[in-house]
């Protein structure tokens, strides 16, 4: 009443953006380079931060060139870090908007938006006797969170990277090896070639007995899932994907965002989430890869195609779509 049409929090945000009760935000406190194209970002989360479980990720909203972009990053700090800060480790990918910004341009003091941690790529309560971590590239990040958090008696790690200097956290991994807390095999794909999952047994003879956490590019994870299934041990394999498996694209169409009153043309391969964001529509989002349902939105009219399966969904009262994995299949109207 005193501040209408604003809320008191609008004024408090001016002075204390990380206070309890505020929208969850964080402040970047440091950025440490890890490799030539990867860096660890140290974040002081706001008071509302609920804490994470090792292996989980969180979404962060970063303003890049004045535009807010949301992406998911695995948390690489242990759950009991004394100073209450959390870290993520980001690998810059070619033309990647957020990853390049965080690795090369982010500066300490910058405020970012946060979301509570989430994800079920985590360790079980009961400690398994034997563990295998199978990772490649930036896929090492959630596993690093686990390694830093929980010690096991018998841990093997197979990690793939183009060259030794591309291995993120290399020194720390080698320290763990020296302390006999980890057995590590590095596969340097530039010289050794791609890891052939069928020959994993040569590196880790008892792989099938190990509770396994795997994270890396789609090719590696697809092969692993096939291999584990073939040997009837698929329940031992846990995977985390950074991108959805896209199989199809078709013709696009005009997309109307009726609540915002915008209409734009879209091709049949671009997720409606990206189309809306590009047009300045406020689109809810989450993992951006079809698993969290944070992006569901009513489809008011027209048809959309699921980019993972090619399945067409037509508008009917009550039909919700995941905008991050749906593209226009002809003209459609999204209620945003």
């Amino acid at each position, binding site marked *: *009443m*005193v*501040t*209408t*049409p*604003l809320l008191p929090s*609008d*004024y408090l945000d*001016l002075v204390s953006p990380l206070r309890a009760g505020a929208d969850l935000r964080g402040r970047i406190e440091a950025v440490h380079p890890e490799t030539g194209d990867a860096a660890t970002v140290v974040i002081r989360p706001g008071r509302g931060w609920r804490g994470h479980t090792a292996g989980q990720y969180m979404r962060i909203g970063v*303003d890049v*060139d*004045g*535009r*807010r*972009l949301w992406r998911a990053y695995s948390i690489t700090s242990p759950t009991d870090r004394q100073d209450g800060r959390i870290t993520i480790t980001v690998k810059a990918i070619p033309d990647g908007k957020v990853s390049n910004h965080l690795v090369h341009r982010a500066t300490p003091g910058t405020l970012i938006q946060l979301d509570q941690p989430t994800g079920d790529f985590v360790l079980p309560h009961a400690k398994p006797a034997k563990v295998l971590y199978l990772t490649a590239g930036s896929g090492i990040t959630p596993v690093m969170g686990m390694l830093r958090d929980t010690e096991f008696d018998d841990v093997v790690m197979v990690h793939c990277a183009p060259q030794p200097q591309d291995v993120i956290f290399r020194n720390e991994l080698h320290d763990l090896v020296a302390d006999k807390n980890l057995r590590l095999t590095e596969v340097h794909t530039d010289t050794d070639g791609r890891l052939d999952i069928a020959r994993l047994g040569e590196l880790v003879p008892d792989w099938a007995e190990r509770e396994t956490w795997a994270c890396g590019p789609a090719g590696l994870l697809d092969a692993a899932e096939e291999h584990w299934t073939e040997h009837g041990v698929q329940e031992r394999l846990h995977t985390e994907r950074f991108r959805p498996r896209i199989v199809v694209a078709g013709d696009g169409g005009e997309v109307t965002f009726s*609540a*915002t*009153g915008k209409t734009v043309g879209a091709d049949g391969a671009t997720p409606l989430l990206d189309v809306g*964001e590009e047009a*300045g*529509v*406020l689109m809810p989002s989450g993992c951006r890869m079809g698993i969290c349902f944070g992006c569901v939105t009513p489809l008011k009219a027209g048809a959309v195609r699921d980019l993972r399966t090619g399945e067409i969904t037509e508008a009917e009262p009550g039909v919700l779509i995941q905008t991050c994995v749906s593209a226009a299949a002809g003209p459609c109207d999204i209620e945003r």
Partner: protein
Amino acid sequence: MTAIDPTAHLTAEQIEELGRELDAIRDEVIADRGEKDAAYIRKVISAQRKLELASRGVLLFSIFPPAWLLGTAGLSVAKIMDNMEIGHNILHGQWDWMRDPKIHSTTWEWDHVSPAEQWKHSHNELHHTYTNVIGKDNDLGYGIMRVDEDQKWHPFHLGQPLWNFINACFFEYGIAAYDLELAKNLHKRRRRNPEFRARAKAVGRKIRKQVLKDYVIHPLLSGPSFLTTLAATFTANLVRNIWTHSVIMCGHFPEGVQVFERQSVKGETRGQWYLRQMMGSANISGSRAMHFMTGNLSHQIEHHLFPDLPSNRYAEVAVKVRALFEKYELEYVTGPLPKQVFSAWHKVFRLSLPNKKPKVKTPAREKEFAAA
């Protein structure tokens, strides 16, 4: 159009070429929008909030005349900033590209009795689409005034200088009534329309909140300064109303601005639409502070051409737009604020009387009247 058509010398191709050149100006700004612009609007919002807070703080002691003056001046400026550079422009979607839910046309609410949602409809959809089209654009005289010779005279118009003055003083209520299309909807049958009733309720709620804040809560908080704070907020609202009314009058009423027949906008091309915006708006010249206080509506022509470009860019766009006016030999209507306000008021007075001599009607206009 009024008297002779000042765009008659342009061929259809030239008009489309003009449209393409304007599109190019727009694209250039869009490609270049970024961090600096985002920082600009955040800075303005933050400054507005601090100014409002500080002014209301000072007004707690408004019983002392210097505090009253300072607080009232600060609050007036804060309210003008809220309505003009911040509210009007955010509600146009000028900052939607930032995708910050706190600074977005679909979530913003302003210090004004007309709810943002309703204002957006009547302003963005009707006024900006049908700019200066008689019978379509209700901004043209707000339905209570005659602002062009082509509008039919009625004895009611004799009082229009007075109507305009009252409207200026209570402009935010005028706008709320206008967004509700009150005049049209007060007929018995329409009054019961559930959609209208819901909208009227929303306005009622907004008015209640605004009045409670400005005229009850803040005066009460001021304790012994109750009456003086009440007078201060009333004055600040009055100053804001008269200021915004003046700026907006300068946008479309001064001499030289064209109005259009309903007929002329049917099947309009992009180029023709641009041309109508160019001929139907007028600018105000002045200092940077003046542009800022008008919410950059002093660049009304540029705003009408590109309603969703960030307001801080209109000044640089204006240079290019003005060059196009010259290239295509069109009149760029502009002038200092006092001159434009006088010109607009002069028109209000002049047109309160019937036209001096019956004008020669062009055949096109006869047809239009026959159809009406």
